[in-house]
C-alpha cells in the first residue's frame, strides 16, 4: 500500500514538472517577433466625451492586425511589437475603438490615442460582433467582412 502511494505521488510530481516545463510562466502572453526588430506601443484611449481614460481601472483587449495581444489596463505600453505598420484595435464588452494604423519603429515607443465608440446595434455604434454559420455551412463573422459594406437582413417572423 505504501509503495502504491509513493508511486502515485511520483507520477503526480512528474506530471506537475512536465506541465511547468510546457507552461513557462515568465513567457509573454502575446506573439513575439522572430527578430530583434521590435519597438513598443503606448496606447491611451479617449471616451466619446473626449476625456482620456487615465484611471487605469478599465481593461481592454488589444488586437494588432486581427491578432490578440491580450488584455491591458490603459494607458499601457506593449513591448516587443514587430516593426512596421499595424492596425490596432482596443475593445471590451461595452466600448471599441476603430482600427487605427500605427507605425512601429525599432527600439522606439510609438504612442497612439484611440477614440472609443459604444458597441451596439444603433447608428453611430460599433456593430456588435457575431459569429454564425450559414445554412450552407459557411462560417460568417462581422470581423471577416471588415473593409466591405455589410447589409444585415433580419427576416420577420411576425406579420
Amino acid at each position, binding site marked *: 500500500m505504501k509503495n502504491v502511494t509513493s508511486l502515485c505521488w511520483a507520477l503526480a510530481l512528474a506530471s506537475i514538472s512536465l506541465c511547468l516545463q510546457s507552461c513557462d510562466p515568465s513567457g509573454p502572453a502575446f506573439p513575439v517577433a522572430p527578430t530583434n526588430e521590435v519597438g513598443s506601443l503606448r496606447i491611451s484611449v479617449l471616451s466619446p466625451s473626449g476625456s482620456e481614460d487615465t484611471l487605469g481601472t478599465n481593461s481592454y483587449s488589444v488586437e494588432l492586425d486581427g491578432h490578440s495581444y491580450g488584455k491591458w489596463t490603459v494607458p499601457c505600453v506593449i513591448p516587443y511589437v514587430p516593426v512596421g505598420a499595424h492596425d490596432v484595435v482596443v475593445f471590451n464588452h461595452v466600448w*471599441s475603438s476603430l482600427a487605427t494604423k500605427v507605425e512601429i519603429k525599432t527600439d522606439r515607443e510609438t504612442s497612439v490615442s484611440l477614440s472609443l465608440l459604444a458597441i451596439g446595434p444603433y447608428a453611430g455604434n*460599433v456593430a456588435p460582433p457575431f459569429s454564425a454559420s*450559414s445554412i450552407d455551412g459557411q462560417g460568417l463573422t462581422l470581423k471577416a467582412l471588415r473593409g466591405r*459594406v455589410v*447589409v444585415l*437582413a433580419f427576416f420577420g417572423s411576425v406579420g
Partner: protein
Amino acid sequence: MLLSFTSSGRVARIGFDCAYSESYLRSFQAQSRLCFPIVSDPSRVVFSTYGAYGLSMYVIVDTRGVVKYRANGFYEAAMSAKIKELL
C-alpha cells in the same frame, strides 16, 4: 439596385431567420435565387444582439464596422442611397 451592389463584391449581405427550419430556408433560398448566405438563428442569438424582435429589420454597417443605418421594414431607396454613400 440593392442586388447590383451585392454582386459588386464591395457589399456583403447576410440574411438571418429565427422562424423557419433550415430545410425550408434552403428551398426558399434556391427558389428565390438568393445569392447571399442565410443564417438560421432559432435561439435568436444574433437577433437579440441586434435588437431584432419579430419584424423585418435591416442594418447597414460601414467598411470600418460602424452601424450607419437601421430600420424596421425594407426601404430600398433609402438603403441604396446609404450604400452608395458608404462606397
